[in-house]
């Protein structure tokens, strides 16, 4: 078998999180009653006309800037003509020859190195409606709520060389987009969709092979699996002496295969032409400046700053930055209590696991910054032991109450008065005379076992450090009892 190189380019459709649709004032909210969020404009009723939502333009510019693109100062829309029942005007208003952004790149960490993936263009367009097929009645229904929801399509250069690179590109892109706060990037809700263009060529050959376009990729995992499958299919096709046909193929999640949908010969002629209902205009420099200034701190910048300002390790800073909400939570906590190292430990080793277990983001919980930092301080100064601290945190996540209230409610106060502790220690020492003997004859490590027994008896409420000290004192200096 020959050596093949894989070439992948991705098209990402991003639904913007603007309040209203791209060309009318209808709400963009997801999951509402079908056709409740429509008007003559997004229904494409005869005589209605589109008017551009300025927020969409701003988001488009923001995305372009974050992807290091050149912004086209001429804003122009075009019509893409095709028939489909979910497209009420039988054309989609999109951007053809003057996309809002062009010629940028995204730096992606993949396979242990940073690779610059080219961005060919990003353009604004309107989403189509949704068809609901009813096999029982042999009919189809159309929900136009999604019609006119703003989209930005981001087209990468064919710079990816493996399914893993494509996967890493997508996660990096998604993280970047989450920082821009332009979309909720939720593939399940369809607010982020991805098509992949895949081709192979013999190692060393410059000319691109014939590509296929993969659709129906419903998760990043699906993107990866579909590409892997498609690459193997293409290799087998070539090895069998056949040719790759330029076509669109659908990913079948169940069977984990790609299936031919339509070939190039059947491809649409979209008959693009300038949208006469929207007059082209130049972006004012003040608006371009506004977009540039509104650009938030991007993940890579934040990472560097966390390492430099808070002396975090690359790993810790990376974990925090991976989750925008967590990164913001971290910084707010540091502001409340200046101890970045401890806060990082708590977030990464405890809080994050609790969140993962609950499938929640930090924003979705009731946890307050003050309560969280107070809790860490209580553990640090010995008021609570680690275990109790963790328990208090789980209650905080669920109830939003502060540690003092929770400690009282749950009877979690640490047992730390010497009298009660000594009673317990007496019992334990009596029950474990052989261990005490062993310790006395030099097996210091066995103290841990006795501490554990005491903790058991206090149901974990005691301060283990203190118990350890008391036991040591008792064994080595009998007179203290």
């Amino acid at each position, binding site marked *: 078998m020959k050596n093949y190189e894989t070439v992948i380019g991705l098209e990402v459709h991003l639904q913007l999180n603007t309040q209203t649709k791209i060309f009318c004032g209808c709400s963009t909210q997801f999951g509402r009653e079908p056709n409740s969020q429509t008007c003559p404009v997004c229904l494409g009723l005869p005589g209605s006309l589109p008017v551009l939502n300025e927020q969409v333009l701003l988001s488009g510019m923001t995305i372009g800037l974050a992807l290091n693109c050149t912004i086209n100062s001429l804003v122009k829309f075009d019509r893409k003509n095709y028939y489909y029942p979910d497209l009420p005007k039988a054309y989609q208003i999109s951007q053809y020859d003057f996309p809002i952004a062009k010629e940028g790149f995204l730096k992606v960490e993949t396979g242990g190195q940073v690779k610059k993936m080219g961005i060919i263009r990003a353009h604004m367009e309107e989403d189509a409606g949704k068809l609901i097929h009813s096999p029982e009645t042999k009919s189809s229904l159309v929900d136009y709520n999604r019609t006119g929801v703003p989209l930005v399509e981001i087209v990468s250069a064919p710079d990816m060389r493996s399914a893993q690179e494509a996967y890493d590109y997508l996660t990096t892109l998604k993280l970047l987009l989450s920082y821009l706060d332009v979309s909720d990037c939720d593939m399940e809700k369809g607010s982020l969709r991805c098509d992949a263009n895949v081709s192979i060529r013999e190692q060393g050959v410059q000319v691109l092979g014939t590509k296929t376009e993969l659709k129906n990729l419903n998760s990043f995992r699906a993107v990866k699996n579909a590409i892997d499958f498609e690459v193997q299919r293409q290799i087998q096709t070539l090895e069998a002496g056949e040719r790759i046909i330029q076509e669109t193929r659908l990913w079948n999640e169940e069977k984990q295969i790609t299936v031919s949908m339509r070939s190039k010969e059947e491809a649409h002629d979209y*008959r693009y*032409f300038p949208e006469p209902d929207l007059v082209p205009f130049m972006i004012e420099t003040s608006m371009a400046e506004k977009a540039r200034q509104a650009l938030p701190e991007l993940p890579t910048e934040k990472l560097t700053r966390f390492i430099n300002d808070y002396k975090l390790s690359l790993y810790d800073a990376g974990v925090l930055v991976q989750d925008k909400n967590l990164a913001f939570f971290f910084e707010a906590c540091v502001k409340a209590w200046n101890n970045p190292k401890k806060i990082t430990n708590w977030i990464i080793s405890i809080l994050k696991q609790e969140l993962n277990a609950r499938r929640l983001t930090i924003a979705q919980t009731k946890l307050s910054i003050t309560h969280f930092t107070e809790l860490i301080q209580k553990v640090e100064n010995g008021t609570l032991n680690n275990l109790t601290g963790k328990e208090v945190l789980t209650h905080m996540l669920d109830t939003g109450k502060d540690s003092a209230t929770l400690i009282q409610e749950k009877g979690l106060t640490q047992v730390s008065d010497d009298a009660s502790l000594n009673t317990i220690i007496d019992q334990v020492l009596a029950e474990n005379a052989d261990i005490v003997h062993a310790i006395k004859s030099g097996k210091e490590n066995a103290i841990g076992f006795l501490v554990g027994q005491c903790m058991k008896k206090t149901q974990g409420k005691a301060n283990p450090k203190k118990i350890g000290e008391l036991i040591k004192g008792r064994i080595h200096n009998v007179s203290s009892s």
Partner: protein
Amino acid sequence: MKLNELTAHEILKGMSEKCINPADVYRSVREAIKTHDPKIHAYVHHEDDGIAFDEKKFGRFPIPIAIKDNICIKNYPTTCASHILQGFRPPYDATVIKKLREAGLIFLGHANMDEFAFGSSTESSYFGVTRNPWKLDCVPGGSSGGSAAAVAANEAIWALGSDTGGSIRQPASFCGVVGLKPTYGRVSRYGLIAFASSLDQIGPITKDIEDNALLLNLIAGHDEMDSTSADIPVPDFTHALTKDVKDLKIAIPKEYFVEGIDEEVKTSIFDAIELLKAKGAQFKEISMPHTAYAVATYYILATAEASSNLARFDGVQYGLRAQPSQQRRTPIIDLYEETRHQGFGAEAKRRIMLGTYSLSSGYYDAYYLKAQKVRTLIKQDFDEAFKSFDAIITPTAPTTAFKLGEKTSDPLSMYLSDIYTISVNLAGVPAISLPCGFAKNGLPIGLQIIGKPFDEEMLFRIGHAYEQATEWHKKRVSL
């Protein structure tokens, strides 16, 4: 004179002097519709439902008005005189309708037109032809033939039409009334069912210039629902009526007086020029070298836009829905094909095919793009002329109204009847047609005055000065 034969400014004056009751005017117009419309057929929908007039409360302008069937009236049948929009009642008012409602106008119904405004004779209407009130075996012009005929036949005091390549001015000329195509962007297109979005404009059709200025006052202005409407101040157009034409510089483009023009039309136009000269206007012949390319350019651009604008009529959401008796392809493609097959007339299909062709990959550059470039050249002809002149005067149409059926089998000769009006739409400038005489056959002749962008005032000024010295606009048809 009967009440329905009055102009709006006469009615308004009568109202202020308490000698005219608008309810009587309305009844008189309704009576005329009942009596004459069976033979004229200016209306396609004139039933009361949804637009009934409350005699007890009327607004500032209780003027009965006919609306072209491509302008949306909320909950009222709006069909573009096409089978494909059968049963369509828009859930919203066009911006012009909203404005007219606020001003208190009384809607009489929807006026006939060429299907989707594709034509120059109103013969392509799915609902049948409209006849020219001056001569019943002649066409009223088109595509706003119903609107012009309604005003000429005194079946409406005012009418709204739409003009993409002459569709207000040519029927106004054929019917002996005043029709204005405002500057592109002067009047909101929101709610006008699009033919060619970059060319369409709604405009007033009235019995004289003063009424035209009054009606433009009511419909003009920026609309945030229409990105192509101009955000510039709107003057009171009636102010232009007090000014004379002394020392105005008016151009006569020689390309508009070559072969094909009717001698009687030519004579009437030059009579009008002489009259204005006598009033102090200065005339000079000029050349507008790209005039010859206007019709070809127009039919590429207008049909390209139309092919896309009409794609939405697919049987899915509203209007006609048809399925073939036997499945041919997939159910949805069958639905599209059969609906459009049954729903569109021959001219609509012709234009959709022409436009689809010129936008197709491989032909786009040679047709659409080329035509866009020529459009720029045509516009430059006007820019150049308006550097030295206040207005341009031409005939509105090369002939008077032609016979019904005369051109239906020859689309090209039909297209050429708009030869003097089309350039104006391509350039986006305003132009008005007003009566300037009658041919021996008894049919009216129209004079076209073309102005600078957003200078409709100049058109009213010259037109009004001309009317002051003539009686053509006072002639009423006897039916």
